[in-house]
């Protein structure tokens, strides 16, 4: 999966949980889930559970704590996919 495909699937996953439409329209690697998209902490858990389902991977606590931006989410997804 290339970077753009990965960003597109992340965009689909976060869409139901975002508050900031403008930040969502401009979503890129540097977008922060909490500060830019204004996703709350409970919905961040939903994002992570949806990522697990979408990519058939398991996110542990350590990875979860790092998963705060599009860039870090992409890195974690790529690492977990490579481990499969």
């Amino acid at each position, binding site marked *: 999966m290339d970077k753009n495909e990965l960003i597109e699937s992340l965009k689909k996953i976060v869409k139901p949980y975002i508050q900031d439409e403008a930040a969502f329209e401009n979503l890129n690697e540097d977008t922060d889930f909490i500060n830019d998209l204004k996703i*709350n*902490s*409970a*919905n*961040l*858990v*939903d994002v*992570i*559970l949806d990522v697990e389902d979408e990519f058939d991977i398991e996110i542990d*606590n350590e990875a*979860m704590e790092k998963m705060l931006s599009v860039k870090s989410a992409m890195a974690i997804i790529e690492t977990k996919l490579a481990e499969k």
Partner: protein
Amino acid sequence: MTSEEIILNLPYQHPFLFVDELVTVSDNGIEGNYTFKNDEYFYKGHFKDNPITPGVILTETMAQIGVVCLGIHLMGNDISVDNKPKIALTSQAVDFYLPVYPNDKVTVISEKEYFRFNKLKCKVKMLNASNELVCRGSISGMIK
């Protein structure tokens, strides 16, 4: 933690504590009950001369028994007198079927959907003393 200890660790008190007793507690779910007293503060206004338990209070009762009590059980030894649970309701969707009047006893039955990264999501239902469905829905909260 025993049922009594779970109730003691709840961050509520009169007039906003809606848990009398926990009947069963496991890692997958919980069952408890509460009897609405005749003189609950909200009956004075809901409704004028016609006391009926507000839906938000039924939702609160389901959340206190079904999510917060279960969450305290799941947190286990992470909760103590010195480390009180910090909780926040994060979402709920509830359908209501029957009214609840003063002195009615209700039973709340909750099934855990998941507890991950401090978020507890449950399927919760409330039954009246005749075992009829009063309300049911999905409630989530964060606990740590």
